[in-house]
């Protein structure tokens, strides 16, 4: 799906600041520069993820290349006590929300954990790999928060492919009926592995919201300022008790679906080149330059921070120990069945033979 007139944009493709009747940029110069830092760091984490997979340090990686603005812009618009329900490609959201907890994500893709973080610590749910299922968790959380009188929202991240899943439609309807404080954030990156948008749906995602009885808005997902403004407004609307909003952020998955995927089998280099020209970080830097905020010093600081994070990611992953064997059984139940514990003792007995020989 190409960009449309209905799409909210605050940045032209050359970085020009555009005026919009509803959505404004109200970030300080410092915040605008920090946004740039986050975009660059997220891209670097993603590069490291790919590299570490190629070096055999990760089993697989799901790149977020090209989607940095959609992820960083939306995550930055949230408050610490909002609750985020990511899919499995939201490394940028994790970084903005939880900083180096992103290392747990690398652990997941290394095969060292199953997400492993405490979802309450950063109000960040586990990665959800079954497509679209997490949208319902966001609705449940939001309904509970509303009952508690808490001024918070829940945000469900999912992709264009997920909108074909029943759970996402069920989530839209349930949220609408309960006027639940939810922001549904769809990163429409044009491809669900090899299936293009035209085979996934016949109408734009954001318009579905109206059928369910709440507003939908399409935003240029490669325009970090527009994504920020639109998400902030939707989150405020939710917290104010006005119910859910569906945001469709039009972006593009510049990388493969995962490192096991070969996109040359299904998409053209012309298409890729077109979207590379629209990639979000260059556009944002052009904006900073026009605004007089970009300096060599800023670039130096940002690149140094990216280098530092990349080094930490590499070092941590390369030295990440295998989990203890007890991780197999320790967390399955609060109160584990005796039959499971008997299996565990048997496994320990089996393993002990080799340690004795060792």
């Amino acid at each position, binding site marked *: 799906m190409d960009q449309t007139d209905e799409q909210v944009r605050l940045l032209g493709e050359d970085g020009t600041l555009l005026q919009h009747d509803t959505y404004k940029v109200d970030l300080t110069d410092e915040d605008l520069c920090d946004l740039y830092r986050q975009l660059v760091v997220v891209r670097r984490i993603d590069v490291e993820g790919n590299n570490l997979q190629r070096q055999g340090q990760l089993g697989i990686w799901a790149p977020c290349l090209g989607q940095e603005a959609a992820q960083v812009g939306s995550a930055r618009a949230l408050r610490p006590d909002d*609750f985020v329900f990511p899919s499995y490609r939201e490394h940028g959201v994790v970084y903005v929300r939880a900083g180096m907890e992103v290392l747990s994500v690398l652990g997941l893709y290394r095969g060292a*954990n*199953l*997400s*492993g*973080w*405490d*979802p*309450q*610590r950063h109000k960040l*749910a*586990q990665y*959800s790999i*079954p497509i679209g*299922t997490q*949208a*319902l*968790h*966001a*609705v*449940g*959380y*939001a*309904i*509970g*928060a509303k*009952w*508690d009188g808490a001024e918070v929202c*829940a945000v469900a991240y999912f992709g264009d492919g997920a909108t074909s899943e*029943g*759970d996402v439609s*069920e*989530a839209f*309807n*349930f949220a609408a*009926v309960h006027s639940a404080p939810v922001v549904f954030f769809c990163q429409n990156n044009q491809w669900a592995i090899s299936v293009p948008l035209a085979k996934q749906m016949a109408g734009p995602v954001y318009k579905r919201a109206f059928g369910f009885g709440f507003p939908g808005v399409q935003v240029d997902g490669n325009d970090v300022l527009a994504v920020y403004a639109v998400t902030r407004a939707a989150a405020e609307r939710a917290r104010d008790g006005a119910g859910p909003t569906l945001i469709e952020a039009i972006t593009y998955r510049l990388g493969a679906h995962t490192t096991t995927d070969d996109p040359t089998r299904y998409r053209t280099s012309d298409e890729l080149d077109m979207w590379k020209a629209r990639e979000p970080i260059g556009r944002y830097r052009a904006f900073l330059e026009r605004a007089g905020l970009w300096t060599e010093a800023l670039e130096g600081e940002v690149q140094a921070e990216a280098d530092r994070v990349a080094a930490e990611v590499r070092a941590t992953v390369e030295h990440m120990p295998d989990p203890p064997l007890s*991780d197999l059984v*320790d*967390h*399955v*139940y*609060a*109160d584990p*069945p*005796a*039959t*499971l514990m*008997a299996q565990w003792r048997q496994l320990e007995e089996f393993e002990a033979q080799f340690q004795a020989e060792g």
Partner: protein
Amino acid sequence: MAQITMARALNTALRDAMEADDRVVLLGEDVGTLGGVFRITDGLLKDFGEQRVMDTPLAESAIMGVSIGLALRGYRPVPEMQFDGFSYPALDQIISHLAKYRNRSAGTQPMPVVCRIPYGGAIGAVEHHSESPEAIYGHTAGLKVVTPSSAADAYSLLRQSIESDDPVIFLEPKRRYWAKQEVDLPVSTEPIGKARVLREGSDLTLVAYGPMVKVAMDAAEAAQEEGVGSLEVIDLRSLVPLDDATLVASAAKTGRMVVVHEAPQFLGMGAEVAARVSEAAFFHLEAPVLRCTGLDIPYPPARLEEAHLPGVDRVLWTVQRSLDF
């Protein structure tokens, strides 16, 4: 002592749990104004309000997914699946998330969700209303699977389930909803994970749960009267965790065992019990553990269900096969 039905005991358990803890909430199809199609939630909407007794949209996956989200917010949801055969749309949420959440959060995130499901046949229902899906849930690590056979256990097991930090699939034997028992509520019975020897015997052990416990007890009574033998009857009460110790001790005592369930035989609870008893009580057994179960078929039309479901006569026939071995 009062004569009360299992339905009333379940209703009272929900009421008492909601009074004890205001984070306990009910949600499901028709659970509010109607009080549930089996009236298990009767009167609760009036007393606790719409926030705690929620009539949901007709979407089982949503009921379960929303329950998971509520649990993440600190609630203790008790979702109802209206019938066994309609719990399947929620399987992805149950298997992929509900059962795994604690494990996927390295033990940090409890999932105190009790999914109530009326199950089993013998009520003359149209298709999809008489299924016994316990093996599906029992095969899913992370879940507990509990099924009462009496009003007292219905009350106590439901209260315990709601207090559990592990997710529980609570299977209610719908043919026993209106069976009465002398009991004063509240009542506290054995903990989840303990089976109960309902009747002592010396010649053979009948193992049953939920709807088949009454059938097993009737069969044991008939066996006594007809001089077939002295049958011990075990009510499992909890399928996960399974009370291995009580099963093995009984098999060691009687030397013969017949497992009775409505669900299809293949990969069913009977297979699990037989394997465990064979492994742990092999030299005590006088005969292989036999199974008296539903056939390995889609649930049949109501006018054929009597032949499909184990009844007293087929149980006794299976008992005789074991005794004759």
